[in-house]
């Protein structure tokens, strides 16, 4: 999932993380929901992030920025969820798993427009930092300065990464289809 900070490392008890949870859970949930388009997935991700925090399954780093860490964890888990969905596309071709595929699809709620899913599938193939920047920009409406501040990077670097990520995503998009918005 990533790393977490020394500050969080010192608060890994339930009572210790409660304050952190209350301060940042909206960021995590909003990120997860924005990416996955699924309330169930977002709920799972929210719980998983803080459960792993509780269990100390993460390794501390020196950035000491809990908000950035939790956001990163939320993005990574959300993108993992997106990637896992690809499995279902794959197993569709295997006869022995075809029935399973139907069951899975039937139980899944709608996850947004086709374009939304395609874009996030493409984002899932970017590096984590580029994905973080895109999501901050378009899900959280952060400015470049705010993104730079949260991630601890320079504004110019954020701008470059944002530009390049957009250019890369553009290649993943299919030509506009009739009847699609």
């Amino acid at each position, binding site marked *: 999932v990533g790393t977490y900070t020394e500050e969080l490392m010192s608060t890994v*008890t*339930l009572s210790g*993380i409660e304050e952190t*949870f*209350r301060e940042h*859970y*909206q960021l995590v*949930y*909003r990120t997860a*929901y*924005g*990416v996955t*388009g699924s*309330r169930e997935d977002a*709920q799972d991700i*929210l*719980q998983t992030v*803080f*459960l792993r925090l*509780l*269990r*100390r*399954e*993460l390794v501390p780093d020196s950035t000491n920025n809990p908000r950035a860490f939790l956001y990163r964890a939320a993005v990574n888990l959300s993108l993992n969820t997106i*990637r*896992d969905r*690809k*499995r279902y596309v*794959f*197993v569709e*071709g*295997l*006869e022995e798993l075809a029935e399973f595929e139907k069951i899975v699809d039937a139980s899944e709620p709608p996850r*947004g*427009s086709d*374009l*939304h899913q395609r*874009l996030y599938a493409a*984002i899932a*193939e*970017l*590096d984590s930092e*580029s994905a973080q920047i*895109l*999501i901050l*920009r*378009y*899900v*959280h*409406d952060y400015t470049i300065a705010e993104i730079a501040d949260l991630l601890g990077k320079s504004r*110019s670097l954020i*701008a*470059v*990464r944002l*530009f*390049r990520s*957009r*250019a890369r995503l*553009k*290649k993943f998009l299919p030509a506009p289809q009739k009847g699609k918005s």
Partner: protein
Amino acid sequence: MKPFETSTEKTFRQSLGEFKTIPPEEMESAGAQALKYLESHAGDYSAEKADAVIDQPSRVSWRFRWPAVAAIAAAITLAVFLPTRIAQSAPATLEDANGTRKIQYGEIVRPIGDKSATLSMSDGSRVEMQSQSEFSLERVEDGGTRIRLNRGAVTVVAAVTGEIRVQQGTTELKLRAGEQAASVPATTPKERIAFEEVSVRPAAPSAPPGPNARGGGGGGGGGAPCSASPPEGRIQLDPRRLYIRRATLWELVAFAIGPCGGMGGDVVTDRDARLTGGPAWVNSERWDVEALIPESSDPLPADPLKGYFGELAAGRSPKLQKMILTLVEERFKVVVRREMKELPAYAVTVGPNGTKFQSKDWVGYLQAVPTQPPGWKPPAGADPSLMPVRSTGRITGRIEAFDPVDVRVITAAMAQGVQGSSVWESGACLDDPGAIAWGNPGEFPAPNVRTSCTSFVFLNEPMSEALRRMQPYVRREVIDRTGIQGRVSFAVDWVKPPYVPGQFYAAKSLQEFSKALERVGLQVKEDKALVEYYVIERAEKPAGN
């Protein structure tokens, strides 16, 4: 803002932000539910941290890598021929868990202990013996010494002035001082690396063949695995799934053994000629292959810039390649023989006045400034957001900050170089301040870059890796004889003829390549190098899934 940006930005805002609005009550409910969940699991809390497992395959120069297929094709009988003068002294000394002892000719030696043992020759050359190996020393006709390996694996590190020959089966490598070669033991069941699920089906006959497809006998292949871009829709690869549509067996084997990337990417030699043999259907019949990659195998690279497929085609996804190898062995009963051929190469050494580039901390780059000559228009068919860039023709020694909106090409190139690939394959000549380059933003190396030079900027690269990256551009193997250890940063380029769309340009002469490297104090000489070739000895059509 330009129309391109406006429409793209709008699309992103609408699509990526489709679920950004969350009612406050839903948010509160989610928080309360999560907190309740955490409370219920607080008792499960364990202070033990999960161990992070980092699997980073070591980068080994292809020249001395013994691929798995070689070990599979024949039982290990590896011989290391040492120069005559070594044989005249005590043959060798073995150091293992029992200490150090001298080894005599003819003695069957099995190093003791779980760790590897070291066989030291009198001149300092070393042979690292894997635990549970078995070997003996033999005199050979020319007076040298042969190390016959009956079991296990070895790594030979040459330290002699002359050369050491390492032979495995019918294949022989020549090692010079400082070079090393490692054998690979025969595949054992516990080393089997395979896909979780595999489906192989005959492809529908009605679909047209790929653009590079060949029919006929066993002399060549489709070429698609080595292409920088796969045929549209034929190959899909993500962290859990590999799907190759209409693949010939030749293509699958090419992926598995990695001839595409083994020579540094593609064009050093005729890549199709490097994998031959097999019945005619190997190149004509096509298969749809779907495979599920095990979740824990982590076979794909961390650098998404290079792309999953690019890494596979470049032979830098060793686990995934082994999975494909297992697939063709088990489903197609493929047996591949490896051969070596000696071909012309370039050897790079340090010139008499030493190198002229900086230490590993140097982070220089071409400085470039935006420019838009009066009347300049993007080429026909090009992206309208193209921006010409004028090189100032000098290295600034630091990374310049540019507004990415105004200078998108150069900043994208910079970001690419700074963050990892460390090579910029297009650009203005270092000595040509007037050169103008253009390219589609986000496409690097840009397929349609029109420049006066092929330029490389290496940032903190090992010298051997930097030279390896130039191989496709000089169409020869480039041997690193500089002796430079650690990482270096430098830039070189050579002049291109006028740009021709779609034409790949490479330095065509020793003089051209030499002139480029003179800038940084390196010399180039013609030499020879062993190149890997593969022959499909056996293949069977697969039974049903």
